[in-house]
């Protein structure tokens, strides 16, 4: 075992009275009295959220207002605390988005179970689920703490991407084989 010989500094008489040290401490605290506050007054002031922050998971729409989730249930499978529950549903063929594979009938995230790990966002092939900036969730009952689909879209908003993957696929199908 390594032994580190510790050399204690020999103190002068003045230092051993501790009075100069206390005086310098008092000077420090006095300086802090007149320096500006470092705290935020929370409900009125909100902290600036840094990029890459993992807040509450939300669902997003594409710029055309189509829900991006196709209920592939990868997030449901990957979710470590099993907070996500998806009920897949068909899209009627005559709907404007009928060419899209599927859509979730129900999409519930239990925020009492969610651990904000971000694996759902990581695994999503459709870029439909994102952990965004919202950090405060509260409710009076357990049922209130489960985010349903409409609430998830309300929180998520629109993702301004320009892939339009499904529209391109539809266009490609209509124009026949490319090769």
């Amino acid at each position, binding site marked *: 075992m390594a032994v580190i010989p510790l050399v204690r500094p020999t103190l002068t008489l003045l230092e051993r009275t501790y009075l100069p040290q206390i005086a310098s*401490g*008092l000077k420090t605290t006095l300086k*802090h009295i007149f320096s500006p506050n470092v*705290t935020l007054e929370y409900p009125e002031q909100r902290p600036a959220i840094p990029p890459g922050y993992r807040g509450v998971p939300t669902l997003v729409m594409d710029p055309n207002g189509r829900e991006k989730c196709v209920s592939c249930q990868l997030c449901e499978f990957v979710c470590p605390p099993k907070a996500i529950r998806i009920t897949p549903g068909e899209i009627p063929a005559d709907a404007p988005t009928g060419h899209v594979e599927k859509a979730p009938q129900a999409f519930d995230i239990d925020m009492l179970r969610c651990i904000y790990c971000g694996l759902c966002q990581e695994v999503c092939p459709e870029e439909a689920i994102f952990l965004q900036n919202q950090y405060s969730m509260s409710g009076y009952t357990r049922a209130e703490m489960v985010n349903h689909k409409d609430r998830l879209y309300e929180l998520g908003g629109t993702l301004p991407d320009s892939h339009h993957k499904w529209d391109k696929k539809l266009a490609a199908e209509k124009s026949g084989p490319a090769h």
Partner: protein
Amino acid sequence: MFDFFFQLHPVIQGTAKGLAVILVIFPFAGACSLAERKVSAWMQGRPGPNRAIVPWIAWVPFLGKFLQRLGVFHLMADGAKFLFKEEPLPGHVNKLYFVLAPVVAMMPAFTTVAVVPFGAYFDPAGRLIPLALANVDVGLLAVFAVSSLGVYSLILAGWASNSKYPFLGGVRASAQLISYELSMTLSVLPVFLWINAPGQPGTMSLVKAVEFQSGAGLHWSGVWFGFLMPLSALIFLVSLYAETNRHPFDMAESESDLVGGFHTEYGAFKWSLFFVAEYSHMIIGSGVFTLLFLGGWNPLPGLPLATVAGWLGLAGTPLLVALLSLAVFLGKIVFLLFLFMWVRWTVPRFRYDQVMKLGWQKLLPLSIANLVFYALGIAFLERG
């Protein structure tokens, strides 16, 4: 103007004075607890309590907001909370002493107020008349004697709570208070050696101590004892911190290792009584320190009350002189209270063995040496 008061029956006078003490010290102590929270907040870069407000004061455009930010209304909110909270009485305590302890805490705290002079005026003949509820000749001794009874509240609270942490807090507090009483008493003796000049009746009067610091101009009689006897003042101040259980001598409470110390089992109004007692001890202690070492109601060293009153043209109106002296005295007390808080949020708590070592091995020999030094010095001065 106040003649009608002195014509009342002594019992009624005494009752009135007692009520006055309660009505002044209780809010003062409450304000101290608020000030403590604000000062600690400012030192830690926080705004501190700043939410509570009474609706119709919120309507006052600028002042209401300012008072809210200052947290003044938290004082009222706290008081109301403590009054209306449920009084818990744990099942395992000794009920008599458990209830008695907060009351015992209040008694010495309020009794000592009576003998501390808090201001002065000049009668038409130019004599100094001190303002005090009871101007007794044994002044300081009375303060020491009565405030030394304050230790029983801690011991009783700790013992009656019948649980581990309060007990440890009570044991620590009793040992600490008795230890520091010695150096405190010894440290003020040079002051009384100085003011008990030969040929006069002996006195322990605090008023006398102030009179000896009331010289005008560049003369040593105008120098405050704090500058004349800095070591005495320092020892007294350190012992005062220990006697009032303030940081860094916060052994009785020491919430990081004893939960809440002697008041762990207390709640609601009984708990707040302990705190009022602690803050009133601080107020009295600051008052005594001011009287002994900071020139009492004299505004500046070498600039006594009489001179300043003469400059302001107040000499003919005793009431205004009294108010001036009271303002100066209170100003010094408020500064010392701020110092209490300032030190509390600066210096970390001592370990218990350090407290005992400081008290018995450092302060006590130092105060004895100080006493011998000043005894010899004063004897030499008076011989020569």
